[in-house]
């Protein structure tokens, strides 16, 4: 099975980034994982990739919503300004601690968002969400909720 070129993690919480990073490593499906602690940092990185090497543009972006300064929604506003070809290269997945129904509703109404996952990211959920057969917002939250 072909490995995923690059996964970008955006979360202001370093522990969350550490956990997610390790979960993805364990999945052995990804060649490169980058974790950044702010939306601004992520945008700089993405802009650099577009300029330098578009093949490195992450196939999956895991995005937190609640972040100081620029939050997840604001990141998406800027992200939407990339060209269509670039946008097609990436799937944005919201990864949040929120279990707020209004956040999920807002996510579903945003065409840039591929799926919405509650933290923490588990191996099962990660494998499901990166599966090419997986449709937009197809995660059955109940069955995939970790039981820890």
């Amino acid at each position: 099975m072909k490995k995923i070129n690059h996964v970008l993690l955006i979360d202001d919480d370093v522990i969350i980034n550490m956990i997610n990073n390790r979960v993805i490593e364990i999945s052995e499906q990804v060649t490169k994982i980058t974790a950044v602690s702010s939306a601004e940092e992520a945008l700089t990185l993405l802009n650099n990739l577009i300029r330098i090497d578009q093949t490195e543009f992450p196939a999956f972006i895991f995005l937190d919503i609640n972040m100081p300064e620029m939050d997840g929604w604001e990141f998406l506003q800027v992200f939407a300004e990339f060209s269509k070809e670039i946008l097609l290269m990436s799937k944005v997945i919201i990864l949040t601690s929120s279990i707020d129904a209004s956040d999920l509703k807002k996510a579903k109404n945003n065409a840039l968002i591929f799926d919405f996952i509650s933290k923490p990211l588990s191996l099962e959920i990660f494998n499901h969400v990166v599966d090419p057969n997986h449709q937009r917002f197809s995660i059955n939250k109940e069955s995939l909720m970790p039981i820890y």
Partner: protein
Amino acid sequence: MRKEIFALMIKNNEHFNSGILTALSSHNAAIDNTEIALKLSEIRYRRLFESAKDGILILNEKSGKIIDVNPFMIEFLGFSYKEFIGKHLWEIGLFQDVAESKQAFKELKINKYIRYEDIPLKAKDGRTMNVEFVSNVYAENNQKVIQCNIRDFTEKIHSNKLLKSSENEYKILATELQEESARLNEAQTIAKIGSWEINMSDNTLTWSKETYRIFQVNPNRFIPSMELFFKHTYPDDFERVNKALKMSYSNKKLNTIEHRIVTSTGEIKYVLENWKVIKNENGLPIRINGTCQDITDSKKIEFEVMEMVKQLQYKNKDLSQFAYIVSHNLRAHIAKIQGLLFLIDKDIERQEKRPELLHTIADEVIRLDNVISDLNEILSLQDAGNKVIEPVFFEEELLQIKLLLSVQIKESNALITSDFSNAPDLNTVKSYCHSILYNLLSNALKYRMPNKRLKIHLQTKIDDSFICLSVKDNGMGIDLVKNKEKIFALYKRFHGNQIPGKGIGLNLVKVQIESLGGTVNVESEVNLGAEFKIKFPLVNKTIKNEKN
């Protein structure tokens, strides 16, 4: 021959020679005079008989049968002359009871006179009438006759009856009117609706009893007038009421307005006025009829309900904020712990990391506990009702806070100045005032510009019924265009992780000042600084929320 002379006498009356008359008279004076007089009387009687507006019947005293009838009677009953003659009274519809009739005749013979005021009589065509029947006996040509005079009583009785019944009706009406007026008065009292009327021709005002009661004006001492009404209108409402009244002159609809009045005892009442302008055929207003309802009680309830709704909205907002905190902040720590547990359990390759992960879990548990403590503190703050209000001196509070923050002040080399001369103290909940000042100062110290000397200035002043405290700094400021909504929300942070903070300070400030009945506002520009303005309500030393 005598007749001819008599006729001649009358005919030539004017030219009659008194000498001739004298000659004739002297010749046969006694007889002639009597005869002439008799003749005259007869003529007069006949005329009376013929032209009378009463029915007259002449009866033979012996047989009781009709021997003559006058034209009025003929017309009155509709029988012909011939039909009358030779009939008994009961045959023409009078005294239809034969026995009764005979009894009447007996009485007539004894008394020579009878009178019935109201006896029924049937005309030929079936009409029934009431008649007055007077009958007397006298001799005519040596023969006894009975003369019966019959007068139509129907109209008289009818009008009598009418008069009587209308008199009764009037009495009933008058009683009803009195009762109605009493009932209306009572109803007005129960409904607290008085009525009034303005006569446009002389601009006079009339009040019902209840209107007097509503205005608490003694009806024996004051005559209502527009001046009196406007004198009792609440000053702030005068313009509005006056305008509404003037505007109504030109319309046809029912006008309505709610306003306040100050009664003669100084009580402020809410009234609802409804009125209609009555116009004459030329469309000019002639009078205004209106009602005035005392709605003070329902208004009070309305205000209470409004206050309750406001309180509920606040509570609801608090609750949704609470739900938000639970779904975001509590969940954030739990999610981390879940993730860490997953690594401890499944990350076989990195067994050596376990102690580190356990340590991180322990940290997260402490943070989780802190969030719960914060929530508890904020929720318990939201009712300042039973807190003691006491005098608080700004200068004193600032001194204490400077001591608490002395490390940060020294570190930042901040210049803190203050001017409390306009409002040196206030009555409030001391711990809240302390906490507000502490959080604002601590925030200013935290979010300073790295290469600019921090200056903080505190100032107080009195503004209306508030004491305003301003805390102004020249620090990093906050982008209000972006964050206006979120600035006072719980766990909202606007600067990156390089500056410590939980995002609770400004929320505490907001919760505390709002529970005191005040407000907090902020003006800020990025990199230029921020000014927080706190409005403390001016309160007496008594407990703020006396209801509890």
